[in-house]
């Protein structure tokens, strides 16, 4: 074997290890933490909506946002923004921690591909959310679209990112897409519940699966 072939072999080994690692650095506990944060957010949303004196919408409908005072609306948006950012930060932090523990670069080619696959759909979901929540354009139906749009786009991102890893993330992605389709088709007025089921319980179930699969020691 000559120098060039040895180098090609080394690169191949590195690529395969990164691919397999993408799965092992998935932090189960951060998925569970994210899921619990979403469940908490859904509970707080429900309590905020329920406290409205003359509601036009049910407290499980995100369109109830229209019933809140301006301060309430701002608090609601800030809370969900923080939950989203908190979830992403926790995921990145724990994944890096896990990768370092395994002596692997968290910025490997596969990890970067997965990251860049997820980013466009999340950015689109953010743009649509801003559009739907624009003060001049605040309408119940568009607010109701936010949760299913996030489910479908997040699901698409997770599915695409999973193409560079094993089946489990792809299954999670498909579950989100299915939940989003069902939600936008039939359960628009139940946004708080569908968000809790998908972003909350799907993440918790996925986190438990990762922990069960790789052992608590591997799932930070």
């Amino acid at each position, binding site marked *: *074997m*000559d*120098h*060039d072939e*040895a*180098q090609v*072999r*080394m690169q*191949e*080994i590195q690529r*395969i*290890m990164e*691919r*397999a*690692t993408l*799965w*092992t650095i998935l932090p189960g506990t951060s998925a569970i933490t994210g899921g619990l944060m979403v469940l908490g957010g859904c509970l707080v949303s429900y309590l905020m909506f329920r406290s409205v004196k003359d509601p036009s919408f049910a407290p499980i409908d995100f369109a109830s946002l229209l019933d809140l005072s301006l301060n309430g609306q701002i608090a609601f948006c800030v809370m969900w923004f923080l939950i989203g950012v908190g979830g992403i930060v926790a995921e990145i932090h724990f994944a890096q921690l896990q990768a370092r523990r*395994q002596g*692997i670069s968290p910025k490997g080619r596969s990890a970067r591909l997965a990251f860049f696959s997820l980013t466009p759909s999340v950015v689109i979901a953010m743009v649509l959310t801003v559009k739907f929540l624009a003060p001049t354009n605040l309408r119940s139906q568009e607010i109701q679209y936010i949760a299913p749009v996030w489910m479908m786009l997040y699901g698409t991102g997770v599915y695409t990112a999973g193409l560079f*890893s*094993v*089946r*489990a993330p792809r299954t999670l992605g498909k579950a989100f897409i299915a939940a989003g389709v069902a939600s936008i088709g039939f359960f628009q007025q139940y946004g708080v519940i569908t968000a809790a089921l998908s972003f909350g319980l799907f993440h918790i179930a996925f986190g438990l699966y990762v922990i069960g699969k*790789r*052992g608590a020691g*591997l799932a930070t």
Partner: protein
Amino acid sequence: MNDSIKPDDIDPVIHERVRLAIVSALAVAPEMSFNELKSTLGLSDGNLSAHATSLQKAGYIEIAKSFKGRRPYTALRLTAVGQEAFRRYVETLRKIIEKGTQTMDEPK
């Protein structure tokens, strides 16, 4: 220390591309199911099965067959012998690369 590389230093079991891919994946994942490994490496059932059997015969991997519910489940793990063989193979590659780089750096 003699750093020269002999043909015998290259393990023929691991040297085959598919088998190297299987061992590389299992070197970082403590255990992978047959389906996980198949999708991670983009292999067909037959191809993975044949090479996994060769690695098992060499004592490099363990294949555990069981049932999850009513569905058959096959788990693959790298053995201590496999880990050592992989470590040696990577070390050999490193030596070849280093030697080649030194040769290229030497003034003619």
